[in-house]
C-alpha cells in the first residue's frame, strides 16, 4: 500500500470515529430523553442539561480533538503543511 493510501485509510478511520461520537451526542442521548431526565447533573434534569450545554460542550471538545488527531496523521505520513503562513 502506498503512503497516500495509508494516509487516507487513517483519515477515513478518524472520520468514522468522529462521526460515531457526533451521532452519540447529537442523537442517541436524545432518543432516551424521557428516561435521562429523571437523572440529574449540577441540579439540572440530565436530558435538559445535555440539550442546554452537555452536547454542545462535547461538540466543541470533539472538534479540537479531531483537528489535533488529523494533524498528527498528516505529520506521520509527511503530508503536513510546512508553515502556517
Amino acid at each position, binding site marked *: 500500500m502506498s503512503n497516500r493510501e495509508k494516509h487516507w485509510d487513517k483519515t477515513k478511520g478518524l472520520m468514522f470515529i468522529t462521526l460515531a461520537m457526533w451521532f452519540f451526542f447529537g442523537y442517541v442521548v436524545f432518543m432516551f430523553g424521557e428516561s435521562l431526565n429523571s437523572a440529574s447533573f449540577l441540579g439540572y434534569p440530565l436530558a435538559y442539561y445535555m440539550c442546554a450545554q452537555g452536547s454542545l*460542550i462535547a461538540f466543541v471538545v470533539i472538534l479540537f480533538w479531531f*483537528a489535533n488527531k488529523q494533524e498528527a496523521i498528516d505529520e506521520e505520513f509527511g503530508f503536513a503543511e510546512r508553515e502556517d503562513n
Partner: protein
Amino acid sequence: MKGKFTDNLPKIYGLYTGGFAVFIILMAIAEQAGMSAKTIGIMFVSFTVVIYAVIGWLSRTVEVDAYYVAGRQVPTVFNGMATAADWMSGASFVAMAGGIYFGGYTYMAFLVGWTGGYILVSSLLAPYLRKFGCYTVPDFIGTRYGGSLARFCAVIVLVLASFTYVTAQINATGTIASRALGVPFELGVWVGLISILMCSMLGGMRAVTWTQVAQYIVLIVAYLLPVFWMGAKLGIPFPHLMLGDEVSRIGELEAQFGLVKNAAADLKAAGVPGGLSSISVAHSAVPDGAMAAWKFISLTICMMVGTASLPHILMRYFTTPSVKSARKSVAWSLFFIFLLYSTAPMLATLSKLQLIDPNLATSIIGKSIADVQAIQWVQDWTAAKQVFIADFNGDGILQLNEWFMRTDVVVLATPEIAGLPYVISGLVAAGGMAAAMSTADGLVLAIANALSHDLYYKIIDPKADVQKRLIVARALLIVIGAAGAFVASLRLTSILGAVAWAFDFAMSGLFFPLVLGVWWKKATRQGAIAGMIGGLGAGTAYLIYVGPAFMAMTPWLGIDHLRFGIIGAPVCFILMVVVSMMTYEDNAEAKAVSAMLDETRIPVGKTILGNK
C-alpha cells in the same frame, strides 16, 4: 503600527473592544445625567453601524483574491469569530431565548442542531474544500464534476437557500432599526440594507471578515452582560453552572399555576394580537412518546446537515491560510458560537423566573392586573403591541395563561423587566443589529459571488478582465440586497420559518453532491446533476404539500414544513448513487478526477485550482 496587518490584529481588536467598553460607560454616565432612553438607543445603533462602515471602507480592495476569499490570510481564531458572527443570525440573537422561554425542551432541539453540524463541516468538508482552493461553493461542484450544468445547478440551490435566509435577516435588521431609531418598519428595512452594503460592497470578503469580527465582539458582549448582571442581582455569579434549583423551581411553579393552552376562540374574542403567546409548554420536562423524540431528532438532523451545506458558512473556511488552520478554525467557530448558545437557555430560565416566581419583586403572575398595568415596561411594550393581558376568567388577577408576549420580547425587554439601566437595553439593540447584519452580509456576499464568479465569469464571459468582474460582483451585491429588502418589506413569513427553510433547501440540494464529491471518486457529473435537481425538487414539492401557507396537507410521520430536508436529502442521495453507478466509466476523465481527489485529500502542496 509596524509589521504585517494580520500580526497586529489582536492589538487592533483589543483597542476596539476597549473603545466599545468606554462607549458603554459614557452612555451609562449620560443616562445618569438624564439622557433619554430613546437617544441612548439611537446612539448605540448608529455608533456601532458607523464603526462597521468605517471598517468596510478601510478594507476596500481591487484584487480578486482579496475580494472573494480575503486573500486567504485570515488567522484561525479570528476566522472563528467571523464565522460565529456569520452564523449567529438575528434569529439566534433575538428569537432563540424567547423560543426556549415558550417552547422549553422541545425548542432546544435547535441548540443541538445548530451546533452539531460543525462536526460534519470539519470532518467531511472544510479542509478538503480549502485544499481545493475554490472561490465559491459552486466553484467546487463545477470543477469536481466538470461542465457548466453542474455548476449552474449548484448556483440555483445556493441562491434559493441563501435568499430565503437573507430575507429573514434583512427583516430582523429592519425590525431592530425601526425600533431603535423610531422609524416605520418599511423604512427600517432600507436603513438596514444600506448598513449591510456599506460593510461588504467595497471590500467583498475581506471587508465582511473584518466587520464580522467587530460584530461578534459587540453581539457577544450584548448577550452575556445582561445575563451575568441579572444573575448577580439574584446572587448567582455564574448562571450556567448554578441554575439547577431555578429550573426545578420553574417546574414547581408550572405545576402550581397549571399549563393551560388557550382555545383559539378565546384568544380571538379577547383580541390577542397575532404572534403573541402565553407559556403553555413545560420548561425542562421531556414530552412523552416516540413521536416527540422523533420530532426532536428529525429537527436536529435537518439543522445539522443543513449547516454543512450552507455556502455562506463553508466559504468562510476558504479564507484561512492553510488546510490545518481551516480545521482548527471550525473548532474555534463552534467555541465562539457555544458562548452564546449555552447562555440562551440560562437567559430564558432567569427571565421566566423573574416573571412568574411570586417570591421575586419583579414577578407579575398572580398579582392584580391593575398593578401590573401600572408597571412602566408593561405599558411601553403594550403600546408597541408586543405584550398583552387578557383577563379570561375576569377575576382581576393575572394568571399564567393570561399573559402574552412576542418571543423577541424575552431578549429585548429582559433588561427592563429585571430593572437594569436602559443603557443595557441600548446595548442589546446594538447586539441584535450586529447579529442580523453580520449574517445578512455573509449571505448577500455568497449569492453575489456565486452569480458573479460562477454564472458570469465561468459560464457567460470567461474572458472578462479583473476590473469588469469586480464591477459585476458589486452591482450584483446591490441588486441582491435590494431584492432581499423588497421581499422582507412584504413580511411573508415569520423569522424562524424562513431560517429553517434555508437549511432544508441547502441540505436537499447540496449536502450529498459536496460530500460524495470529496469522499467517492466514482460520483459522476450526471449523478450530481440528478441529485441536485431531484433532491431540491422533491424537498420543494414536499414543502408546498405540507406548508401551512401553501397546500397545508397533514405531514407524513411528523415531517412538517420545518423538516422537509428529511425528504429532499435522501432523494438526492439515492438519485446520485444510482445515476453515478449507471454512468461511471473508467476513462481518461475518471482518471483525471481520481488524481485530482488524491491531491485534494492531502494537505500539503498547491491547491487544485492553482490559486494561493
